[in-house]
């Protein structure tokens, strides 16, 4: 089932949780709502579920108006951040709940319920835990039970609120890969909320980056990571270096480097910021062109698959973060305190006033 969100706004007292948000989730896709806390991502998820009302706008399921539909009738599965398992029920009863509360006419028989629940418990690999209570399970197991409980009612849409937020790092990575595989099997339209960029980039078909109640960018993980639409997305997805400069007549001057920017041809002259990823910082021992910036190495972290360097510009004293391959690091034989020449590649320039 596809979901369409049409210019939805929501206010909590004086706080604008969502401002004119529009988004379409095609049927069968796994979409991540990614943003810092307070960006409105959880509010949007709860509005899709019907757990929260909206002030303006509309929610459509499969093109049909669903805004006024009660949460009970929306046929969504919702997985809560803190699981929200029924603490006085066993794993079996938790998973069976959605089927047991159906009116007699549509309720499957006892045997059918038992078979279906056991099938789901098998799917989440907790066959030996059916009679346990939530308190007797680990965090990862509880989250899997919460997922099975949501899937038991065969929802048209699966909504997950920070599904791995409360788990420790290792379980988190395992569980999100498992969720991805599960989605590839059952193909239910899914939306999950996260503040963890790795999670969003790894699991989702499409990433929706949110900030302060608005959507900043929608795209595949590659699109949002490689071609961020604005400085916020650049900052939020991964580490980034900032180089300040000026834009004038379609040309940016950042340090000693000039870049042609035809899109800014018409723009008034003004300050600009160039964004460069740490792995796009090239370091040389000797100057090869005027476009290089002089810097001193302040700190090197050489252990691991890549070497991380912290440099200080000699002209502005601003810090630059650089990442290079092990081989390149060995080849250069860099030392802390050494003076080097830095050359940023793949700069993305934004006008300063664009920054909020």
């Amino acid at each position, binding site marked *: 089932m596809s979901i369409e969100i049409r210019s939805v706004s929501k206010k909590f007292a004086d706080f604008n949780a969502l401002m004119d948000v529009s988004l379409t989730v095609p049927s069968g896709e796994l979409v991540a709502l990614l943003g810092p806390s307070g960006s409105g991502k959880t509010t949007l998820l709860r509005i899709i579920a*019907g757990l929260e009302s909206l002030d303006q706008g509309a929610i459509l399921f499969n093109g049909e108006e669903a805004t006024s539909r009660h949460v009970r009738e929306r046929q969504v599965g919702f997985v*809560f951040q803190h699981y929200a398992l029924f603490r*006085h029920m066993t794993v079996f009863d938790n998973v069976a709940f959605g089927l047991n*509360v159906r009116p007699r006419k549509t309720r499957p028989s006892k045997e059918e319920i038992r078979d279906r629940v056991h099938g789901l418990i098998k799917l989440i690999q907790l066959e030996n835990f059916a009679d346990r209570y939530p308190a007797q399970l680990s965090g990862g197991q509880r989250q899997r039970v919460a997922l099975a*409980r*949501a899937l038991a*009612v065969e929802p048209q849409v699966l909504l997950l609120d920070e599904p791995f937020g409360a788990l420790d790092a290792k379980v988190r990575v395992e569980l999100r890969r498992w969720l991805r595989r599960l989605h590839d099997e059952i193909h239910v339209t899914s939306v999950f909320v996260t503040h963890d960029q790795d999670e969003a980039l790894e699991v989702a078909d499409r990433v929706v980056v949110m900030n302060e109640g608005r959507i900043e960018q929608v795209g595949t993980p590659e699109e949002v990571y490689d071609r961020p639409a604005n400085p916020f997305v650049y900052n939020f997805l991964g580490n980034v270096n900032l180089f300040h400069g000026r834009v004038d007549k379609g040309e940016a001057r950042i340090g000693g480097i000039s870049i042609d920017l035809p899109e800014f041809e018409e723009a008034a002259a003004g300050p600009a910021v160039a964004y460069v990823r740490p792995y796009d910082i090239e370091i040389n021992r000797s100057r090869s062109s005027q476009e290089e910036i002089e810097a001193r190495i302040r700190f090197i972290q050489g252990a691991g698959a890549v070497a991380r360097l912290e440099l200080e510009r000699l002209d502005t004293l601003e810090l630059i973060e650089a990442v290079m391959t092990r081989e390149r690091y060995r080849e250069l034989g860099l030392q802390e305190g050494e003076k080097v020449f830095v050359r940023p590649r793949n700069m993305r320039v934004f006008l300063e006033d664009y920054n909020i």
Partner: protein
Amino acid sequence: MTEPALVRWFLTGVALIFLGLFLLVPLAAVFAQALEKGAGAYIAAITEPDALAAVRLTLVTAAISVPLNLVFGVAAAWAITKFDFIGKNLLITLIDIPFSVSPVISGLIYVLLFGLQGWLGPWLDLHNIKIIFAVPGIVLATIFVTFPFVARELIPLMQAQGKDEEEAALVLGANGLQTFFRVTLPNIKWGLIYGVILCNARAMGEFGAVSVVSGHIRGMTNTIPLHVEILYNEYNYAAAFAVASLLALLALVTLVAKSIVEWRLKVSS
């Protein structure tokens, strides 16, 4: 614990001596006085018709007021903890009023409202409805005084539990009643029983408010505490203590039940 043994023994000793002097000795005295004239006099005192009427009235009062406050307490706690509405803080304050007002005042409120000289008195008199100096007044006063027990017990518990489980039940298709009986009620069961036990103990033992509205008509509007007072004022000490021992027994039973429930509460959370 890092305190020296001497300090610990001293503090424990002080607490025990205090408890002994102010709780155990009086409790023992009640039973000793009650049985002073022998078991025969004891049984006669508690099976005498006026005493039996007092026991009956106390039980009836509790049987009406406790269930009502159970329903009210659950409804109030449910509304306060699971929903946001205007006037929520006012409701919380109102629930606390019976705790902060002297029971005598609580009784007087009803006399002023329903008494012959009160606001509604003439109308009630005209329709021959008796509230003050009759059973309805006693029940009303008891309900007022025991009003906060269940709600006060449940509100912190339900606040701590949050509304996640209820929301989960709703999303899974449960209606309001199913959510309440299958999710909320099992979660608050022990807290609720605890509140009911306290509410019941107070309902049966209430003196001040009931005393004002009762009129002290023997065999008619006397509850156990009021009956004890009358006997005592008549210098009928053995009978007074015999009836009082019933209340003391109730207190002991309450204490045991309370401990069991407290233990269950700890286990279930």
